[in-house]
């Protein structure tokens, strides 16, 4: 690659900072990547296919048919427990909201996916680690109910460290609430595809994310119930290589396929079209 050579030469000459603003490095293979290339490649390293965190709105763009997305999520978090740890929850919320540019860890709405009317919900790990409190739970329940009402498929992209501590037992209850709401889809025979991305753990995995008709995982994503640190503490030994990664889950029968982000829309479309009984996917 000419660009890479250039980059290397300039770096050798000490002309530029190690990672100039237009450039970044792949955390996996350390290859320098031109940021625009990375964006165009859906935040997948063009060298080693390492999947980096994917901004939620870009995720929506990558799955929804162009121009069809119409946001329905709109709830804002409250602080029902007046939770304070080293800092009040409300302060943290303000910071998260500023950083992530949204009220809570989820965004989604109506759209077409491969021409199939759908509700698409995307968790945002950039907001409090994508943790699930009342807002995430309620938006997912509403999303499922909206899909049921309007005869739409449901697609949820998970990225979450689990339930949100600052809403304590209320967060826990979101596991039940979201799972129950999926029943409304079942009753209408509408498909639900769950997409697990890095990381999906705790109460999110152990509720709506794990009981879909079809489950896809992005390559190399950390997926599980307990976090690796907790497990290490419990068993007091190192975890095996690849433990709790997508490929491990595939081997253990927990997900249907590990799908490269760049093929995800094709895969989701394939499944939705089949289940809504539509004609054979004519090449997305």
């Amino acid at each position, binding site marked *: 690659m000419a660009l890479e050579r250039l980059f290397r030469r300039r770096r050798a000459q000490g002309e530029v900072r190690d990672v100039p603003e237009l450039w970044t490095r792949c955390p996996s293979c350390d290859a320098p990547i031109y940021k625009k290339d990375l964006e165009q490649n859906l935040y997948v390293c063009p060298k080693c296919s390492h999947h980096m965190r994917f901004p939620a709105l870009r995720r929506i763009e990558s799955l929804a048919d162009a121009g069809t997305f119409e946001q329905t999520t709109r709830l804002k978090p409250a602080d029902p427990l007046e939770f304070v740890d080293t800092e009040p929850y409300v302060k943290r919320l303000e910071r998260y909201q500023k950083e992530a540019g949204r009220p809570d860890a989820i965004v989604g709405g109506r759209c077409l996916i491969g021409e199939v009317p759908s509700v698409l919900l995307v968790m945002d790990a950039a907001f409090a680690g994508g943790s699930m409190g009342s807002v995430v739970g309620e938006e997912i329940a509403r999303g499922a109910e909206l899909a049921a009402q309007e005869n739409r498929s449901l697609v949820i992209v998970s990225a979450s460290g689990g339930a949100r*501590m600052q809403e304590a*037992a209320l*967060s826990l209850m979101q596991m*039940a609430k979201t*799972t129950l709401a999926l*029943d409304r889809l079942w009753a209408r025979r509408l498909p639900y595809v769950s997409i697990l991305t890095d990381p999906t753990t705790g109460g999110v*995995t152990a*509720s709506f994310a794990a009981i879909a008709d079809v489950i896809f995982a992005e390559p190399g994503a950390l997926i599980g119930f307990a976090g690796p640190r907790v497990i290490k503490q419990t068993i007091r030994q190192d975890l095996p290589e690849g433990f709790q990664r997508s490929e491990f889950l595939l081997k253990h029968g927990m997900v249907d396929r590990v799908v490269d982000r760049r093929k995800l829309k094709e895969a989701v479309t394939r499944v939705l079209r089949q289940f809504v009984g539509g004609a054979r996917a004519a090449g997305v």
Partner: protein
Amino acid sequence: MRVPLEFEKPILELETRIAELEKYAQESGVGLEGELSVLRERLKKLQDDTYGNLTRWQRVQLARTPGRPTTLDVLGGVFQDFFELCGDRTFSDDPAIVGGLAYLEGTPVVVCGQQKGRDTKENIQRNFGMPHPEGYRKAMRLMDLADRFRQPFIAFIDTPGAYPGISAEERGQAWVIAQSIQRMARLRVPAIAVILGEGGSGGALAIGVGNRVLILENAWYSVISPESCAAILWRDAKEAAKAAEALKLSAPDLLQLGIVDRVIPEPGGGAHRDPATTLANLKTALLETLAELKDLGPEELFEDRYRRFRGLGVYAE
């Protein structure tokens, strides 16, 4: 003898002193009634002060106290003719969850619950009440039976959490918890969950999707244990007491939040000080709760449960 909790010590010491004095008075014939009545009054005040103002962290400690009634104690003491059924018909029988058939005052019911050991050896055998996926699959089989034969399903929660280990992850701990939540939500029979001691996160909720959720006065129920919460938010597990306060994980808190429907009173000092009274209170609560549900049809029971959990959560539009 169990090791007393820190806050119990003054009370236990005073109790011992009174008992010794009583014994001395009786044996020696010396009249000590005046002194004794002062001490008894002091004891009463101390008990009221302590037990009437338990901190959340103190309750968590009570919830973990040895001698507190476990699921099997309840199945033996509140129900008649408990008949254990084993196995998940898939992989193994998990001793951390027990269940089977029972009668509650003549009503046939299906029961299950996490089971902690009552001594160290049993605790190891029962994995400290932390179920593997096969335990939840056993619970789901029991839910199937309850549905099939239209009998109420009653679950007892007492777990620090689902087992966080390699074996459990390999066999889909998250998956089976989600499935169990869904299965219980879909029951077309009355479902009651009772938190007996520890209600640790998803591993507790997996069998907690009742039409009604009851809790013993000193039990706790939370998305995370106080220690783990402290380790993450305070970066120090020793701040568990602070975390317990912040998490509002006590029975009165949960009742206020609508997460539980009824608090079952424990005798002064906690269930372990008088298990018989505790079980009697529990039985009354179960019978009254079953009676509340008995006029609902199968679909109504499902919808009632749906509405109950659908409504939980606090947010701003």
